[in-house]
């Protein structure tokens, strides 16, 4: 097992990985950009090194600097988290060359699944159903126009190096195609350093169902069942759950086996996720492999009892999987809500600033994976995810109710967050009924404004504000007693010790 791991990331996922390392007796090195000195991951790690200025390209994406830091700090392995360098095959390759273990798939498999076009071709050859669309990356607009006409509008523009919804655009008619391609390419370039995009048929209102897979270096592969992640805004997931309300045991088993086959034909090892789109007729199409630890991994952990970060580290160290497919069972139901620093009343625009106060939800079956604390600053430079709230209960309806209350009990003051919006998603009768598709938010919660404030709450808010107003006129109790203490004889005695000389 490793003695020391460097974590090339920030935020909640780095905190999550540090906790796993602590439990496994592995010491941790955090890296941070100049604006992240006070971040939670820096405070929690055993060692921390500043790797450059705020823009990610100069810090968290700086391959040379991160490798050099790993050597300098004598870290044997690097965990890339998600985002940043997590799915960068050049980085994985560089680690291999430098004798540092990359906690993730081998660079060859990473290159294959990271290349959406090549993986589409590979899967089609292996007899796995893919979404109709391009199997090459043209630069010429007329080729895009032709393909769009062939598969029919609406079409989806996707970044070849993509993930997290970046660079993705839905195009409904030909006149939107050119500006959408331009915007998609710019976004792809900025997010991944690669502007290549391609077209796929846009399936209307599918469900997004993905399978968690673990593969050790000896070729053993298991799947840990599905996660349904259909609730999305801007093509990015905000609510995930498992089991999916849409899967019957037979379909689940079939999709699980397909996921394992995808991993096998890709020569993939470590933890990965195979994403599928499930249409209304319950056909499932291979979408892509997410070659990393997923944001939504905790729902799988809570229902299978397997710690995925422990598994990642253990597999990377060369250990064999300690369990077989038959030993894995889904127990109960788990839901995750992603808490973003965004304004749901204003098109989910990111909201940076200072978290003046934080109170996490607690209680039976409630888990909070966070990267924030009272007083922390949320910088503008990175993904606006603040934390994840995850619940587990015996069945879906109990988990749903538990989540509603956990969201009600979750306080973040000072910046705008998605908490209130998520509460309305989870409380929605269509969510309750399990009718979750990727069009859910647009269909049910478009132009969301939240509930109107009740008279009583307004009154209490005024009373509390006035109460604070009254208090702040006089010196506060704390300050008063501190002032008294300053002149107390105990203070003027100077340094002394009981029994001292």
């Amino acid at each position: 097992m490793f003695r020391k791991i460097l974590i090339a990331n920030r935020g909640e996922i780095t905190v999550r990985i540090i906790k796993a390392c602590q439990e496994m007796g592995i010491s941790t090195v955090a890296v941070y950009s100049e604006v992240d000195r006070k971040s939670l991951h820096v405070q929690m790690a055993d060692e921390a090194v500043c790797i450059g200025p705020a823009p990610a390209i100069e810090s968290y994406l700086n391959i040379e600097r991160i490798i050099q830091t790993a050597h300098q700090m004598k870290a044997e392995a690097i965990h890339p988290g998600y985002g940043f360098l997590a799915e960068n095959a050049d980085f994985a390759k560089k680690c291999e060359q430098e004798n540092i273990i990359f906690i993730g798939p081998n660079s060859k498999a990473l290159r294959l699944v990271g290349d959406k076009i090549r993986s589409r071709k590979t899967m089609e050859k292996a007899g796995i159903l893919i979404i109709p669309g391009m199997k090459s990356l043209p630069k010429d607009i007329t080729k895009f126009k032709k393909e769009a006409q062939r598969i029919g509008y609406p079409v989806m523009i996707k970044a070849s190096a993509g993930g997290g919804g970046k660079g993705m655009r839905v195009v409904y008619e030909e006149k939107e195609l050119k500006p959408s391609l331009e915007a998609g390419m710019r976004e792809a370039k900025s997010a991944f350093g690669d502007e290549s995009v391609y077209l796929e048929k846009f399936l209307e209102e599918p469900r997004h169902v993905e399978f968690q897979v673990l593969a050790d270096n000896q070729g053993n592969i298991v799947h840990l069942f599905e996660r349904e992640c259909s609730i999305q805004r801007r093509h990015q997931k905000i609510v995930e759950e498992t089991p999916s309300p849409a899967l019957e045991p037979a379909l689940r088993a079939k999709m699980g086996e397909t996921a394992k086959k995808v991993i096998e034909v890709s020569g993939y090892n470590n933890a990965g996720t195979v994403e599928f789109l499930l249409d209304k007729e319950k056909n499932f199409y291979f979408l892509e492999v997410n070659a990393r630890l997923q944001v939504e991994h905790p729902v799988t952990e809570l229902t299978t009892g397997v710690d995925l970060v422990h598994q990642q580290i253990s597999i990377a160290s060369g250990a064999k999987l300690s369990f077989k497919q038959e030993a894995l069972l889904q127990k109960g139901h788990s839901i995750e809500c992603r808490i973003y620093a965004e304004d749901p009343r204003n098109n989910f625009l990111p909201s940076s600033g200072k978290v003046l106060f934080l109170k996490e939800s607690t209680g039976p079956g409630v888990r909070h994976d966070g990267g924030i604390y009272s007083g922390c600053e949320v910088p503008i430079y990175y993904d606006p995810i603040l934390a994840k709230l995850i619940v587990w209960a015996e069945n879906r309806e109990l988990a749903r109710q538990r989540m509603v209350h956990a969201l009600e009990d979750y306080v973040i003051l000072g910046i705008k967050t998605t908490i209130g919006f998520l509460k309305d998603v989870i409380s929605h009768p269509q969510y309750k009924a399990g009718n979750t598709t990727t069009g859910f938010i647009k269909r049910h919660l478009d132009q969301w404004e939240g509930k109107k404030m009740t008279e009583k709450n307004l009154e209490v808010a005024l009373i509390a504000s006035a109460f604070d107003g009254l208090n702040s006129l006089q010196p506060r109790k704390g300050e008063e007693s501190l002032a008294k203490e300053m002149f107390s004889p105990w203070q003027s005695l100077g340094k002394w010790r009981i029994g001292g000389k």
Partner: protein
Amino acid sequence: MDFEFLIDNKLHKISLEKKEDCFVFSDGEKTQEVNIQSISAHVISVLIEGHSYQVYWAKDKERRYLFLEGEEIVVQEPTTSQEGIEKREEKSREDELIVRAPMPGKVIKINVSENERVRKNQTLAIVEAMKMENELKSTVDGYVKKIHISPGELVDSEKPLIELGLKD
């Protein structure tokens, strides 16, 4: 003591007086006794007619952020009187002609040039923040009076980026 607070741009005039163990609250229409306790630096407990409210709060300059019954409420202290509010409304009409970034970010592209005619909702510029592109759209039918930015520039949410003029 009298207080004025702004909530959702609406002015509320109230009073709160200490009376023995309790407080007396009045909003001009009704007066009632309330029991208020400071629990910790960020928690106030309010009892009204036996109803218990746990209020989380934090203050940043003239803004108080409150959270109660699962709801967030921002309470502002008005800097001036009612007149000020009317002025502010007037100003916000002028403000409509000034395009600002919705949040700090980097200017990616400017789609218009000075003196160009623009339609309402036409994209004027693109600003990127947190790896997301935001299109700045025209709020009016009019023309571009002045452009204060250039591509690549980092901007905050205060700075006027583009000034618009109304069609005459």
